[in-house]
């Protein structure tokens, strides 16, 4: 494939973390609080545990087929046709995720700082970034992720620190929220939160240190779980659960509460930067995966001419939900069942196939 560079392990790590935690700026904390009430953070941990299991399958798969990405693995196990079916599923997965998150991010910018701007302008700006970064390749995207990593972390810590002033730790009680059983019922669909770890399967051949794949994956997954839990917990602490499940984009509201003495109030516009960078990187990574999936399914060597048409596709799909609440609800409560299915299903099926059909390199012991 053209323009495929090599990515270092630290860059891949940061990229995966950013792609998985990009959601915390959208309605993700509120969804968790809606489903788990005071134990929303616990729901995140449960979902994280289940996704760790799914990740175990994925990493074992990658270990059996070193140096290959998911398409090549699936064709090797199941043959050309069936393998390509999996690839198509992945393509649609990434495409729809990109489009729906694209819409949500654009809406969030309009709601928070630019109320009168039509969404097409903001979408155009984002689209330009997606196209440009996809054109430059995953190497540039991951380097950029690593470049911005510390700043993003710093800004998050800033928000955390200032919000703790308004936090009341007694808001976490009652501890079990709506009860253990409802929590467990919601765990499986909510593992879609971490479904983007499948990206690891796609960029696996491009990472320089091949033996570090497991470490990269598990570290990024664990860090994302920790960050998502902390954010959900923070939202529950600052707003009690009855208020929190009505907030749209809770981190934005948290940023609004930040006030340092008299002169630095109402500084939430600065968080636009943090937000924008995470949104841009998030969407770029997902879009790149979608484009490369498509290219690889049809054996197209150079994926660059595909970028603009697929970009247009993303743009149009993003405009499908007719208003904002629909876009949020659609993604969080209807589509996420499918995401979870794909995330849990594909590595499992592939792994079982590799096991049963005895494909791939089995490591000793």
């Amino acid at each position, binding site marked *: 494939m053209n323009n495929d560079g090599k990515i270092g392990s630290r860059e891949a790590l940061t990229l995966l973390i950013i792609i998985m935690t990009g959601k915390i700026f959208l309605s993700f904390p509120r969804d968790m609080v809606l489903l788990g009430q005071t134990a929303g953070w616990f729901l995140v941990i449960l979902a994280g545990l289940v996704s760790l299991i799914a990740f175990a399958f994925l990493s074992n798969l990658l270990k059996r087929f070193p140096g290959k990405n998911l398409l090549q693995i699936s064709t090797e196990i199941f043959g050309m046709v069936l393998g390509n079916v999996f690839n198509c599923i992945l393509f649609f997965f990434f495409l729809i995720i990109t489009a729906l998150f694209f819409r949500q991010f654009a809406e969030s910018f309009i709601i928070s700082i*630019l109320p009168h*701007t039509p969404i097409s302008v903001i979408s155009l700006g984002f689209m330009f970034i997606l196209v440009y970064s996809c054109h430059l390749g995953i190497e540039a995207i991951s380097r950029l992720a690593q470049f911005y990593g510390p700043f993003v972390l710093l800004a998050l810590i800033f928000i955390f620190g200032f919000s703790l002033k308004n936090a009341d730790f007694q808001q976490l*009680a009652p501890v*079990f929220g*709506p*009860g253990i059983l409802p929590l467990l019922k919601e765990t499986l669909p909510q593992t879609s939160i971490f479904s983007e770890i499948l990206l690891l399967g796609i960029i696996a051949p491009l990472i320089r240190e091949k033996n570090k794949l497991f470490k990269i994956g598990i570290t990024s997954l664990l860090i994302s779980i920790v960050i998502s839990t902390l954010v959900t917990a923070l939202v529950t602490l600052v707003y009690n659960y*009855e*208020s929190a499940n009505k907030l749209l984009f809770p981190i934005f509201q948290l940023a609004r*509460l930040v006030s340092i003495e*008299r002169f630095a109030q109402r500084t939430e516009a600065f968080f636009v930067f943090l937000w924008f960078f995470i949104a841009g990187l998030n969407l770029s990574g997902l879009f790149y995966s979608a484009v490369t999936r498509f290219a690889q399914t049809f054996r197209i060597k150079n994926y660059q001419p595909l970028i603009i048409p697929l970009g247009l596709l993303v743009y149009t799909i993003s405009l499908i939900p007719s208003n904002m609440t629909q876009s949020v609800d659609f993604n969080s409560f209807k589509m996420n069942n499918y995401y979870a299915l794909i995330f849990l299903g594909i590595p499992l099926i592939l792994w079982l196939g590799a096991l049963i059909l005895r494909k791939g390199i089995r490591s000793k012991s």
Partner: protein
Amino acid sequence: MKQKKNISRIILIIIISLVILNGCWDRRELDNLAIVQALGFDLAPDQRHVMISVMIAIPSQISGGQSGGGNGPNVLVVTKEAPSIYEAFNVINTSLNREITLLQNQVIIFGEKLAKQGVQDWVDHLLRYREMRRTLLIFVSKDPILEIMTINPKLEKSPAEYFTDLARLSEKNGMSPEIILNQFINSYESSVQESVAPVIGLTSATTAKSTSSDSNSGGKPEKVEKEISTVGTAVFKQDRLVGYLDNYETQTFQMITSHFKEAMLTTKDPLDKNGKISFRLSAGGPTKIRYHVQAGQEFFAVTINQEADLISIQSKIDYTKPIYEDRLGKYIAAQLKRRVEKLLNKAQNDYQADIFGFGIKVRNTMLTTTDWQKYDWPKHFPNAKIKVKVNVSIRRVGVQLRPPDPS
């Protein structure tokens, strides 16, 4: 070919510049904005509409600067009636030439009538609109809002800062709570605590006229003016205003909720019936509330720790001696305990509203939110038994040991 390319490039640049310079959707120039500093709403006389008063800052008067401050008012107060808050803005903009923006707003004032009828209809207004934010200060006003807004505070050019500073100063005297919209909404939505808000009202104040060049200034009469002051706390039950606490009850309220920082108080001298002792009371630590339930009856044990620094002693008794200090401490503690118990009684029986947040302690013992919702704490609050213990220790005596002695 090259000519065409150049011309088309120039046209492209011109188009882009036009778009940028002409204006984009969100761009607003500073001198097109009417900056609202305080927003007040009350019920209109016909009980259906809401009467909105906005206090708009006049930049040239407030900032002074090069144009020089004038003698006129610093703010423009506009009142309009409308079915909703934001429609009122539209109506105001039919006569005011600048676009009303709430971006710099700092204060929200509820009228008494509106609060008594219930803020439920208007709370969503305060949350949903983008320009509102949850860091606004909330006040309830006893007197008509229009009168309050038109008063020119003397030391401060900008009235909104007057309000914010006033609220912030409550730390020093504990006589009114500092409530921002976030706190109000949190307690409004949850059943662990009822909401409170500080109350402002007009009180009369006598000010002497400033000395003029006339020699016989004694003949000039003193002016009686009205000024704004915080007169206590408003107690809400669910969404209605049910009662008031005055300044001293508010202090006690702050003590129970661990928000009390310091205040200057006076008490009768325990050893000398004619004298008074002034001291500065400051919180010695957060208030401890312990909860246990026994046979269906809830018990709360409230422990308040305060520290006192003596400020003035009217009698000649030397309170720096340890036994006297001890006795004074116990005396003050007894008086405070009486005040706390009176307040708790008032909250439980008169208002039946748990403004202190005892509910959180109860919720801590529950396991699931469904249990908590079934429990319905507000019904149980009036029957709870609350035991109070107050500890006051005299820490410092100022810079003088024995009081002066005329001999």
